[in-house]
């Protein structure tokens, strides 16, 4: 009886101690996965996901608080990449692909107040006080912050126009004939 209890106790204590020592030497401070996930996100700090910035969103993704489909500007590709990195499966068939949009300033309504200019995180808006403002389409990533602050509602989001350069063939419909 004593031998049984004793041997188990000794075994447990030894293994426990060894594990404790190993834990000290194999400590991992910060989760480097977070940095890798952050690199996958667009990095424009737009806040559409509800988190303060892409770094906070990455933490939430790694801890499992947020789903991989939480980044609207990232689109399907970002969701798939994040899911692959985290090793989770994500059902993308139901996820609606948000049409990429860019901002457009209606020149008839714009009063040149510079508020959108100050909000824009990528300097996509050019303008000066009391001068006409306009959006550089190639640089705008569609976060929508400018729309919220415009006092005259001169800014609206429009889908990115398809040009001859960006058009490509659609996927053939796989209609199985059995």
């Amino acid at each position, binding site marked *: 009886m004593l031998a*049984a209890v004793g041997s188990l106790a000794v075994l447990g204590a030894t293994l426990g101690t060894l594990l404790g020592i190993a834990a000290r030497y*194999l400590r991992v401070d910060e*989760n*480097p996965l977070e940095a890798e996930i952050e690199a996958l996100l667009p990095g424009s700090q737009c806040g559409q996901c509800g988190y303060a910035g892409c770094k906070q969103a990455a933490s939430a993704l790694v801890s499992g608080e947020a789903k991989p489909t939480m980044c609207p500007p990232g689109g399907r590709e970002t969701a798939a990449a994040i899911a692959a990195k985290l*090793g989770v499966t994500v059902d993308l068939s139901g996820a609606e692909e948000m049409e990429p949009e860019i901002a457009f300033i209606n020149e008839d309504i714009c009063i040149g107040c510079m508020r959108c200019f100050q909000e824009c995180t990528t300097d996509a808006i050019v303008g000066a006080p009391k001068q006409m403002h306009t959006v550089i389409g190639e640089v705008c990533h569609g976060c929508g912050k400018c729309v919220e602050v415009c006092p005259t509602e001169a800014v609206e989001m429009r889908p990115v126009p398809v040009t001859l350069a960006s058009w490509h063939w659609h996927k053939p419909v796989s209609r199985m004939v059995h």
Partner: protein
Amino acid sequence: MQEILLLLIGTALVNNVVLVKFLGLCPFMGTSNKVDTAIGMGMATTFVMTLSSVLAWGIETFLLVPLDLAFLRTITFILVIAAVVQFTEMVVRKISPALYQTLGVYLPLITTNCAILGVALLNVQEGHTFVQSLLYGFGSAAGFTLILVIFAGLRERVALAEVPAAFEGAPIGFIVAGLLSLAFMGFAGISAK
């Protein structure tokens, strides 16, 4: 030398732990979706199985037999395996956080992998020596890894095919595993034992 080779081939192919003994099916199904994950899992299991086999042999020889505590075999073996798995978890987390995240819950589940306990108990049953236990553990793990990687490759291909909706995922995986098992029965003809 020949004996060693025979032992290894016997445990890895002829008496394959997954396809012939049908042990360790949970991680077999769970981590065989991609070849990279399968390789990672296989290596982790090899490490755990080899180390546990040796430690289990040691516990049996120097603790349980002298003190006549054979009834404690299962619980002490599990204790050792759990500790080794914990250690392995720490190592994997340090070396590759991505693999750690990918394996997810299957890494601590190696503890409950019946293949590892099975191999450790079989060592006792067969009365293996230290070297034999080591080779038996390593051979079984090598067989496990081999089958896991082959199966992952097969599943990656099956994922590209038009599988009926009811069979997608695990069901078609089990059917493929069954066919693979049938194929490996061919090795039974060259069994040494």
